[in-house]
């Protein structure tokens, strides 16, 4: 994507039928640090890489609790993410007030997508520069959705966004078929492995990542650092070793599985068409 005469306003189409400002907003998501999500039939796990600007500053919060049954991980402009989280919390509270029951995740992501769409069709606004992985539980089980700045949203078994997310996606694509029946702990383990893939050799410790879980009988909660470190140690995920022997057998069975997870769009095609 190079600078051209059709990319100044979000309300200007290019001759090829693209809205460049929206695509640039999706680039902002790719620049953010990685966030991944995966789900089974009963649980959903979110994990993200926490990169601090400098040793002196604290890590940016990228995972937010929206309600007892919904949480969100963001990648991109975290300020936009914070504002959208506040909107999501507000929607959940209002729904709960009116209907005395939890807002179904599918309804929330549609509202979020509609809100994002508005910013793609007003000349005085700009698209939100943040991608959201929404993990939640409703009557039909656990769900994982991805909301992008274009106003599109998709449901996933597992997905990764942000910088070097392709490495995580490749790992998830190998494993996703067994996720529906995975236990809570197996899901967390896979999440941590996926995060490790995005670190490209850097050591995985609980200080660089955050993990959150929601599931049947478990309200959305962010795991504390000690718990995460204990899990990392237990699964021996810290360094770039080959995964444990148990998973090696599965890998031998099948290689590139069908791409049900995030299909990486070709660079030249309009990304919104996925």
């Amino acid at each position, binding site marked *: 994507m190079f600078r051209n005469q059709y990319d100044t306003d979000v309300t200007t189409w290019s001759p090829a039928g693209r809205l460049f400002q929206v695509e640039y907003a999706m680039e902002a998501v790719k620049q953010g640090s990685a966030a991944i999500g995966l789900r089974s039939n009963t649980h959903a796990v979110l994990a993200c890489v926490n990169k601090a600007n400098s040793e002196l500053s604290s890590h940016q919060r990228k995972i937010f609790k929206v309600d007892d049954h919904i949480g969100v991980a963001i990648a991109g402009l975290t300020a936009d993410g914070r504002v959208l989280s*506040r909107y999501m*919390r*507000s929607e959940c*509270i209002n729904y709960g007030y009116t209907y005395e029951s939890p807002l179904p995740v599918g309804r929330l992501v549609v509202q979020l997508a509609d809100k994002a769409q508005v910013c793609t069709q007003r000349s005085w606004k700009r698209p939100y520069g943040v991608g959201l992985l929404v993990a939640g539980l409703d009557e039909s089980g656990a769900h994982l959705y991805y909301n992008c700045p274009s106003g599109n949203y998709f449901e996933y078994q597992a997905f990764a966004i942000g910088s070097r997310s392709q490495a995580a996606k490749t790992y998830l694509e190998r494993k996703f078929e067994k996720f529906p029946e995975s236990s809570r702990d197996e899901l967390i383990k896979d999440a941590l492995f996926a995060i490790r893939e995005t670190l490209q050799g850097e050591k995985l410790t609980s200080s660089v990542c955050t993990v959150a879980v929601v599931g049947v009988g478990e309200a959305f909660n962010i795991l504390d650092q000690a718990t995460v470190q204990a899990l990392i140690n237990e699964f021996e995920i810290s360094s770039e070793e080959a995964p444990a022997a148990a998973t090696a057998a599965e890998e031998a069975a099948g290689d590139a599985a069908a791409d049900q997870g995030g299909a990486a769009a070709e660079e030249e095609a309009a990304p919104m068409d996925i």
Partner: protein
Amino acid sequence: MTKEHANWSPYDNNGGTCVAIAGADYCVIAADTRMSTGYSILTRDYSKISKLADKSFMASSGFQADVKALQKVLSSRHLIYQHQHNKQMSCPAMAQLLSNTLYYKRFFPYYAFNVLGGLDSEGKGCVFTYDAVGSYERVGYSAQGSGATLITPFLDNQLKSPSPLLLPAKDAVTPLSEAEAVDLVKTCFSSATERDIYTGDSVEIIILNANGVRRETEQLRKD
């Protein structure tokens, strides 16, 4: 030229009595479970007590539809607070929120007579008493509702709390033990039940202390 008055009122009084007593390290909040309208009983088993936060319970008599709406508003506001501050609201903070919420509807009030009870940030018992439009005060004990006029003089006799105008400032909490306070509350309700037709059936008692929350129910006269 007399003004014509409405023959419909948005309010109704569902009766009932609420009491709260603050102790050195506990708080007792109690309310009867009778809900009535006029001279009829709607149900003998209705809770007037609501948990607003880990350490704040509100007992409200008056118009229960307004009470329910008030409880929901406070509950939602507490959720927002938790999202923003990552912790539960303290009882004094909730007390101020309740006052502001009530005054917000100064010109179409919640017909609710509230008593807020809980533990403050030091772990001491605190009781706040309100009128319908949000005027409130921290006290050592309080009663609201149809039986309040019968119970308050009795509590004054047993627990007289020092006036907040006295110097040096004296502790508002009662020196009674938790068990003694619970017993006192049961006595209050049995006595009020005798003479107030709107109070009776059973009393729900919530005891809040450092170990958590305990709930007791005591049967009262059903007539």
